């Protein structure tokens, strides 16, 4: 099978858009999480994109009916393509766009509900979940497959896997794959609070309490924090990348997709293990050859234990050598864009041979039993392969396995 390579990266996420700056912040363990919506009955925190200059990508006229989720998506996809050398002249009909998005234009829908009966006429085109993909296609003039995957928290990991298949099969020369999510609006935050999955924190204890409230794999973890943003990567075949002299960040050596088929929201170690095993098999790697896992790690009481069980099941005796961290502690849970951002961080970790810390975990939960990365800026001079996991409501699991070139 033709190897698939990552030749461009782009992000518009809570830690910014400059790849080196955002990776350095993650490596230091800087949290982008802060309190939001003080008017809500229960304290709320989120990681938001603070320095997004939308005027770099849209005139005010172009913004008509364009929700924030599409704005962030266009920016990140454009940055990815530029980082990859503008696709090296891929013909428009040979370029595909693969976008993960869980909810679509949440701000547009929230505004419609709050409009007192006056519903803005562009609510539908702003809200529809595939709007982001359509806007990217128009902006980048991609005329091949332009697809949207809505698989909850695995959306963008699935999008990347599907894009890799299209590259491998020769359906497209260049794929821009990733995801976007922008649902930090009061109605959605309250809905997630009602689901009892968000991290608790003492609103009177200051910003630090909010910034550190997401504690994956820690004994005192209580859930995740919502995040927003978009991240994309450029995928192309190794022969094409070589022929054009592209800078290659990593190989996307394997991917695995599975479903628990047991429960809509309760995670299942066997289902997760199937996805991880598939990715290893496709990459023709043994577990011992994979040195780092960017875990799904949502910091829910059950989720982290089940994920640990899945990793132990697949890695077996090699589990002690697998370094693990969940960077959601720092950038929040980007839901439909989580897989893409975490894949991007995994690729940079592999490329730089540095491991991001599993932050805010002073007391690891012995029930998880993983070799967590505790220190910031941890060097990994022999790292050859790394995996990024995404597990979703709906039972879908996705694993993306990257190797060094």
């Amino acid at each position: 099978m033709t190897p698939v390579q990552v030749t461009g990266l782009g992000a518009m996420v809570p830690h910014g858009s400059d790849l080196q700056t955002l990776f350095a912040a993650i490596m230091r363990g800087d949290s982008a999480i802060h309190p939001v919506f003080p008017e809500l009955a229960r304290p709320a925190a989120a990681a938001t994109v603070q320095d997004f200059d939308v005027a770099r990508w849209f005139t005010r006229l172009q913004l008509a009916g364009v929700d924030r989720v599409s704005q962030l998506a266009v920016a990140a996809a454009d940055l990815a393509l530029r980082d990859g050398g503008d696709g090296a002249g891929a013909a428009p009909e040979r370029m595909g766009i693969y976008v993960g998005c869980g909810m679509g234009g949440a701000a547009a829908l929230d505004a419609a509900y709050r409009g007192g009966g006056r519903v803005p006429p562009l609510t539908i085109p702003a809200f529809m979940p595939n709007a982001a993909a359509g806007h990217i296609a128009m902006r980048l003039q991609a005329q091949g497959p332009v697809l949207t995957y809505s698989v909850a928290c695995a959306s963008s990991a699935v999008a990347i896997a599907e894009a890799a298949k299209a590259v491998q099969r020769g359906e497209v020369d260049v794929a821009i794959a990733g995801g976007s999510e922008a649902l930090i609006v009061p109605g959605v935050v309250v809905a997630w609070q009602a689901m009892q999955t968000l991290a608790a924190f003492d609103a009177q204890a200051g910003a630090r309490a909010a910034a550190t409230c997401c504690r994956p794999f820690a004994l005192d973890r209580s859930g995740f924090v919502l995040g927003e943003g978009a991240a994309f990567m450029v995928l192309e075949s190794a022969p094409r990348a070589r022929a054009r002299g592209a800078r290659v960040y990593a190989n996307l050596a394997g991917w695995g997709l599975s479903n628990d088929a047991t429960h809509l929201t309760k995670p299942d170690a066997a289902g997760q293990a199937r996805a991880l095993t598939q990715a290893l098999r496709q990459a023709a790697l043994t577990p011992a050859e994979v040195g780092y896992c960017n875990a799904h790690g949502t910091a829910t009481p059950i989720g982290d234990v089940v994920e640990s069980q899945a990793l132990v099941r697949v890695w077996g005796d090699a589990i002690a050598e697998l370094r693990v961290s969940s960077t959601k502690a720092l950038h929040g849970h980007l839901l439909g864009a989580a897989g893409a951002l975490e894949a991007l961080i995994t690729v940079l970790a592999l490329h730089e041979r540095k491991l991001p810390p599993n932050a805010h975990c002073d007391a690891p939960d012995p029930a998880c039993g993983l070799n967590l990365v505790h220190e910031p800026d941890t060097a990994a001079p022999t790292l050859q392969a790394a995996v990024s996991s995404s597990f979703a409501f709906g039972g879908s699991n996705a694993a993306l396995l990257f190797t060094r070139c």
Partner: protein
Amino acid sequence: MSSLKELQDLIQQKYGIDPATLDPNASMRGAGIDSLALVEFLFEVEDRFTVSLPDEYSNIDTLADLARVVDELRASATSQTA
């Protein structure tokens, strides 16, 4: 009083289009205000001028035509309340 100046101000405020560059008698679509943006603009006009544009005016294409319709609707509203 014509609503044209207010409409020009609104279009500048909302879309950053300088009135000097948009001939009131030229097609708004031709100036880059596509069908989606125009629908959104008409919605804003309704809010701003407290009028309701009948459906038959949804294909209005020039700012001058829109100003005439808004003038008529405002005059009609004024006469009804007088």
